[in-house]
Every structure is written in structure tokens, then in C-alpha cells.
């Protein structure tokens, strides 16, 4: 077990590439972060920036032929997950690190009952009898707030609503008491009220069990409410990494600023919605220099050679705030340390109002 000063999960320089017919796609190109106990790390970014691929890489769920794990390390429990044998990975998946996915409607096998699927996960990782496993499953369902859990065990997925299916997924993920939960856009496919319930459920479970949550989302509202640490990804790299309050208060990267700008605010004067001009570059043809330069408001009109020469690295510009842009104050002199933020604050969080 880890104490509070050691991260549960430490990713360093992860590189995951895909062999496609258009070339090599650099989906994840040097990503580093650390997840501590009792902490929620949010991985934010647009579609296609590589956040899902990162989470799948941690679990090594990507099929090998088109996927190449080109480099980096993933430290968990004194092991490097990228180089662990498959048998070890199977023990870790579901048992130590669990994952829930975006589409609850299709994530459960339609021909098996809920009970069958949860019990399967339990018996895989714990040495319990069938009866005990069923009891654990029922308890898990009760913990996620499903009514009449005993009856639900013998129902089929198509008999449940989307929100309930996502709760079942969470129950299945938590049945073996994992240390890390990876939630890949868990609420994107649900409507807003259910979204709030699911996130509250996850927060509650985190409090009671102390697990770390890697939350992947593109919704800044979800980030503000649930995250402790935020990592903003763009084009396969992390461009900003900070405590959530710090990020929302002082976004240093032009991309983060652009994202925060895009959120429509209530009560202001109604003007046009803000956007970030341009499009995400294709992962097979990234530019050599800064990948955001083409859309950057700071760079517009001033094409400096430095931007074209190299991609800015993630540097700790302020204590606890890493950013990868030439336009941050004191960037050139900032040390290039590894992004890792221990949990520093008490749980009680004031709700953020206007950002």
C-alpha cells in the first residue's frame, strides 16, 4: 500500500502510437502525471486529443497490432505496467485499477444478467464462494444506490435505464475495491440530472474508500465540481497541469484560456459565443514546433522561430503549476520537473461561481 506522499499511479513520458493507413498517428506523445490517494485527477481536452487513449494505455486495453507502446513508464504498486506480463495485467484490471466507460447503454453484455456480470468480476479477483459473491454483488448495487438490489441481479441490461446502467457499471468496477478508478467520460451520455447524481455517487465512494479517480472529460463544469488536480491535454501532450482552483483562477496556457472563454455564462450580456479558431492538427501530421501555435491568440501574426523550432516542454512555472507554452511568464527559467501534485487541501470545497 502507498502512504499519502507516494502516488498511487505515476505515468512518465507515455507514448502510444497507432499504425494507420495514413501513417503513424502519435495519439499520446509524452504524457506524465501522478495520481494520489483520495484524489481526483481530471484529464481535460477536446475530442481526439488523446485522453481516452491515455486511460486505455494505463490498462493496456488497446489491441497490439495497430497500437505501439513506444515509450514511457507507468508505475503502479512498484511495477511498470507497460512492461508487465499479460497475466499480471489481468489481475490488475478490475482488481486494482478499474475502469468505467462512456456509453452505459452498450457497455454491458446484453445476453447475461446483471448479477452474472458482476459476480464474474468478483470471482475473478477474490477467493469467495458463489453465495458470498452474490452477496457482495448485492451490497455493491446497494452502495451505488440501486433500489431492490436482489431483484436487479437477475434482470437483463435492457431492462434498466441509462443512469441505472452506469450505476451498475460503477458497482461492477468497485466490487473488488480497486485502488484506482478510471472514469472515461462517465456522464457524457447521460442527461444533466443523472449526471449530477452519478458524480455525487463517485465522490461519496471516494470519500469512504480513499481511492484515486482519473476522470476524463471535456466538460469544464464537471471538472470544476469534481476535480482536485487538472491536466489539460492538446494534440497528444499535456499543456497545463495544476490544482483546480489555481487553473481556473490563473490559466496560463492560451488553450486553457480559450477553453474557459468558450463556456457560456449566465447573466452576462448576450454576445456571440466564443470559439477557438482553427482545427486540431491530424495526429499523423503534427507540426515540429508548438502544436497549438496555429490557433494561438498569442502567436497570431508573430511567427517566431522559437515556436517553429521545438515544442515547448511542460515546466513548473509556479509551484504546483506546470505549463507548456512560450508565452508564460518566467517560462524560460522554469525548471522542468515531473508533474505531480499531492493532495493539499481539505475536502470541503466551496462551489465555484463565475469563472
Amino acid at each position, binding site marked *: 500500500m502507498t502512504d499519502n506522499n507516494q502516488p498511487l499511479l505515476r505515468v512518465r513520458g507515455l507514448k502510444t502510437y497507432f499504425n494507420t493507413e495514413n501513417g503513424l498517428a502519435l495519439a499520446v506523445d509524452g504524457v506524465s502525471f501522478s495520481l494520489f490517494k483520495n484524489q481526483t485527477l481530471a484529464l481535460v481536452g477536446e475530442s481526439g486529443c488523446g485522453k481516452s487513449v491515455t486511460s486505455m494505455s494505463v490498462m493496456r486495453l488497446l489491441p497490439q497490432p495497430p497500437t505501439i507502446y513506444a515509450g514511457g513508464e507507468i508505475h503502479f504498486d512498484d511495477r511498470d505496467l507497460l512492461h508487465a506480463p499479460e497475466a499480471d495485467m489481468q489481475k490488475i*484490471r478490475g482488481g486494482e485499477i*478499474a475502469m468505467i466507460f462512456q456509453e452505459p447503454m452498450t457497455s454491458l*453484455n*446484453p*445476453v447475461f444478467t446483471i448479477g452474472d456480470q458482476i459476480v464474474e468480476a468478483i470471482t475473478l479477483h477474490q477467493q469467495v464462494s458463489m453465495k458470498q459473491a452474490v452477496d457482495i454483488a448485492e451490497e455493491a448495487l446497494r452502495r451505488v444506490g440501486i433500489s431492490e438490489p436482489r431483484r436487479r441481479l437477475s434482470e437483463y441490461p*435492457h431492462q434498466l435505464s441509462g443512469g441505472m446502467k452506469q450505476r451498475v457499471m460503477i458497482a461492477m468496477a468497485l466490487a473488488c475495491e480497486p485502488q484506482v478508478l478510471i472514469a472515461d467520460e462517465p456522464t457524457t451520455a447521460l442527461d444533466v440530472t443523472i449526471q449530477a447524481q452519478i458524480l455525487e455517487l463517485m465522490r461519496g465512494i471516494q470519500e469512504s474508500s480513499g481511492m484515486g479517480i482519473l476522470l476524463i472529460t471535456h466538460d469544464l463544469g464537471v471538472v470544476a465540481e469534481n476535480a482536485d488536480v487538472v491536466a489539460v491535454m492538446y494534440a497528444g501532450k499535456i499543456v497545463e497541469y495544476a490544482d483546480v482552483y489555481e487553473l481556473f483562477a490563473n490559466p496560463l496556457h492560451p488553450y486553457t484560456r480559450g477553453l474557459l472563454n468558450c463556456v457560456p455564462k449566465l447573466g452576462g450580456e448576450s454576445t456571440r459565443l466564443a470559439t477557438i479558431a482553427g482545427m486540431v492538427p491530424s495526429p499523423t501530421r503534427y507540426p515540429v514546433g508548438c502544436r497549438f501555435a496555429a490557433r494561438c491568440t498569442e502567436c497570431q501574426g508573430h511567427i517566431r522561430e522559437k515556436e517553429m523550432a521545438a515544442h515547448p516542454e511542460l515546466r513548473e512555472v509556479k509551484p504546483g503549476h506546470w505549463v507548456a507554452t512560450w508565452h508564460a511568464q518566467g517560462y524560460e527559467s522554469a525548471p522542468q520537473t515531473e508533474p505531480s501534485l499531492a493532495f493539499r487541501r481539505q475536502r470541503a470545497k466551496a462551489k465555484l461561481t463565475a469563472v
Partner: protein
Amino acid sequence: MLTYILRRLALMVPTLIGMTLMLFVIVRFAPGVGSGPGGLGPGGDMQGNEARLEQIKKHQQRLGMVDAEGNKIPIYKQYFIWLDNTFKFWRVPMASNVRIPTPIPTGIDLGESMQYRKPVWELVKERVPTTATLNIISIFFVYLIALPGGMLAAAKRGRSFDVAWGLTTLALYSLPTMWIGSMLIGFLANPQYVKLFPAAGLHATDTRYMTFWQYSFDYMWHLVLPIITMTYAGFAYLSKQMRASMLDNLSQDYARTAKAKGLSGFVVATRHVFRNSLLPLITIATGIIPGLIGGSVIIETMFSIKGMGELAFRSTLARDLPVMQALGLISGVLVLVSYLITDLCYAVADPRVSYD
């Protein structure tokens, strides 16, 4: 569920009527049919011979084309008479001599074959076991080889096994049955080359004095070539279907969830994905039921096996109308029943399907 079954059965009736009517009209309007089994070609051959004319009239009477006085019966009446003779509809006795027909059948009478002079039902009873045995054994081997082949091809998708397996099964499917059959017989059952297997029939000529084991062995020995000829073409479709189904399901979200739970790839494929991939295969499996009638004509003809296909072929060539119509009816019923069975199997296999 019961209402669904009843509704399906009720819908079968118009289809059956349509099919039998079409068959009926086609064969009755054909030239040369009414002239009886005298081997007359299309277009008939009226020779004005008195005895011959009398024979023809008797034949037509038997077929129901002409009534007792020798007047021709219109075709629609012929059809209804045939229906009545076959199904013996229950007639409600009202007043004296007045009986109202109802559409409730009370029995089945398939008529008598002109060629073999036996009731059709007996012919069918004799031959169905043979054809059924052939088909069932063949299907068993097809499934035995094609299912694992398809699963392996899906697991090693894109690599050499997949490509080779796909091409091989496709090549086997493209080989014409009669070519392979005649090559097999010509080279393996021919005294000119190698006489390894018997060339015809399913039993040796003298089976009375064989023990049970000898009899079984002889039966199996006779079955080898026909089964090979029947089986080789079936791998392609089933294997392709299995592979496509597996690939489809392997990329589904629930397969990803199962992997994320910590199951090994093998367990995911064989337990989760396979269960879901089975569903299209049910349709294929129940599809052999209609094949019991006409599916193996060529094989039975080439190997001189007395099965249903051979019966259909011979009676067609001999213009044996009662047999042809009876076989058409049976075939139609089998096909429609197989559809119904498919639906019911789906309801059992897939919990999402419900007919209530």
C-alpha cells in the same frame, strides 16, 4: 407468445396457398402432362389411336383433370378438388344432402404415386430418414470445422491464418459439387484407378448376413464419399458468418468492459462474444430444415442414394404429378416451419427479443 405463434401459423396459410397454387397451375398447364406416363414429350403426341385415347382419358380422370363424363374441369375447380382431397375438409352436415364445407382440415392424404404405384406418404417415410441422416451428419461436420475456424480467423484477423482460411473456404465453396463428386468417384471408386470406396448406394448388396458391427461399418464406409461431397462447400458461409459476427462483437463496448474487468482475451472471446455471435448462426442452423427436400439432388443422383432429392428429381422427369404436388406442399410447410422455429430460438437465445 402463444398469440404470436398462432398469428405466424395463420400467416403461413396464404403463403402455402400461393405456393401450391403456383405449382399446381404450372404443372397442369404444361404440355404433355395430361397424356399420362407414356413418355410423351412436350407438346404431346396424339395419335388418334382408340385404345390410346381411352388410356389418356383414364389417366386424366385419375389426375382430376377430367370428370366422369369426360368433360374438362376448369383449373380453379381442379385446385379446390385437390385441396379437398388432400386435406379432407370437414363438412358440416346440415339438411339432407347439404353439407357445408369449412376450412378445417381433418386429415392429410397425399395421394398415390403413379410411377411407383405406392402412396406418397410411404415413399416419403422411406426416404426421409436417408436424406435426414445425410444432412444431419453433414451439418454436424460443417459446424465442427467451420465454427472454430471462424473464431480463430476472427482472433487472428488480418494475419496469414485469416487470409488463408478465408481463401480456402471460398475455394471449397466454389468447387462445383458434381465435378468434385465425379472426380472423387472417378478416381477413388473406380477400378481403373483406385477402388477405395464404393461408388453407389448406401449399403452393400447383401446385408442380411452381416452382424451389427459389420453393418454399421459398411454403412459408414458407404457414407464417406457422399458426406465429403456434401460437406466441403458448407464451411465457407458458416465460417464467414461466424467471423463477421465475432469481429462485430469483439469491437463492441461490452467486450471492452469484459477485458477491463480483467478477463483474458480467450475468455472474453469464448464466453461473452461467442454467446452474442451465435444469434445469426441460429438462422443458418434452422435453414437446413428446408434442405431436407431438394437440397441434395445432385449428390443423391450421383451416388444413387434413394433419398428425397432423388425422388423429387425422378418424379419431375416422369411427370408424376401427385408426388410433385405433395413434395411441394411438404417443402413449403418445412420452410415456413423453419422460419417459425428460428424466431422461437431467437426468443430463447436473446433476452432482448420478446414477442409479447
